[in-house]
């Protein structure tokens, strides 16, 4: 295997992001979050703590919610990534996004995309129809405006409506 020189370690990757195939050349150390934001200009994914705690960077990798700050872009080669930009259908918000708006489930908005992606995965897996279950689902994301009451209501309503496709 040819030796890579540190600092010049780049890789050609093919990913499918929100349904679009992307061919890119990335540095080894480029995080998936920075790849999405800086290379693909999908700035809906936010970068907060960069160590997996805050959840702002949550995206779906092959359908599963993951922290995009804890993955390198090169690791997404051959995989499917979905970001918050993929939730709405054009100008039409998804039922979960509508529910967020109705319940004021966001204040400054920084954490919102991460919450949406976490909740979307949970709703796809099954009902989140009690506040207790919603708090569990939401516990992996932090909102520094502490707008949790609205978030809990929004997720429960999105689940009750049977419109849990995110």
């Amino acid at each position, binding site marked *: *295997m040819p*030796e*890579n*020189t*540190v*600092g010049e*370690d780049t*890789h050609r990757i093919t990913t499918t992001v929100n349904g679009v195939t992307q061919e890119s050349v990335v*540095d*080894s*150390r480029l*995080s998936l979050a920075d790849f999405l934001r800086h290379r693909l200009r999908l700035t809906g994914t936010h970068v907060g703590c*960069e*160590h*997996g705690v805050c*959840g702002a960077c*949550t995206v779906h*990798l092959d359908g*599963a*919610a*993951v*922290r995009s*700050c*804890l*993955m*390198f872009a*090169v*690791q997404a080669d051959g995989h499917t990534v979905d970001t918050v930009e993929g939730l709405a259908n054009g100008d039409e918000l998804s039922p979960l996004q509508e529910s967020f708006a109705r319940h004021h489930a966001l204040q400054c908005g920084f954490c919102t995309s991460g919450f949406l992606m*976490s909740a979307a*995965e*949970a709703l796809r897996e099954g009902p989140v129809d009690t506040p207790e279950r919603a*708090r*569990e*689902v939401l*516990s*992996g994301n932090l909102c520094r405006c502490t707008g949790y009451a609205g978030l809990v209501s929004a997720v429960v309503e999105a689940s009750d409506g049977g419109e849990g496709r995110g």
Partner: protein
Amino acid sequence: MKPRAFAYHAPASVPEALALLAEHSHDAKVLAGGQSLVPLLNFRMSAPEHLIDVNRLPGLDTVVREAGGWRIPALVRQRTVERSLELAAAFPLLPAALAQVAHPQIRNRGTVCGSVAHGDPAAELPTVLTALGATMHVASTRGVRAVPADDFFLFHFTTALEPDELLVGVTLADLPPGTATGFAEFATRNGDFALAAVAGVVHRDDDGVVRSARLVAAGVAGTPVRLAAAEAALVGSALTPAALVAAQHAARGEVDPSGDIHAPGAYRKQLVGVLTRRVLTGLTRQGGVARAGEHGR
């Protein structure tokens, strides 16, 4: 908050991975789920020259039924184990503890073997696997060796893994009939590391007398800690209230945790006793699994 530049390797086979590890063992890290390693890289607390990503290794991402037990290979995600009905039936301790490992977004990516190799003494999986008497299977170009859980964890984030070795799987022997298991943890927030946790595996005969017990505590020392005095207090007795109190006092007396910003040592010491008793109380109720998960919520 960006890692130092590194050379990235994505071997396509275990032999290739082991060759890379042998070649770069002076300064390489294995990347599996990355949920502990990547934060360390981002903080530059770890700055290896070579990162060996094992995620492309084939055939290591599903649990395997073997003679007399189960194997959890290197790339089995924590979420996969959590959702496995077969593993839940064989080892209810696993889903009970996994539910308290961080959050689903972390468990979707984090692997069981990665948590074991990382060796965080406050983490649930090393503790539970020690209680279950798991065996760690470690490979290098020099061969494969099996290390019992009791000998695997050496100190904070330090295990029996040599720099050129890869943890290729963990095996668990089926529990004999009459075995009950339980897990109890205290953390201040959902998904936090345990201030303390206790896992118990207790085998009773037909008369309800304890024949063997493994009690292991997390978060109170540099490794998962066998609560040998508490175990000894149980063996030969039925799980009577008096035996439970004796085990509680023994457990509390045999740990000497240090304090930190999250809790003083004396508080953790007290917790170990209380959690031990909760685990054992759960066993008396069910004769099976205690899901005595405790969060301060």
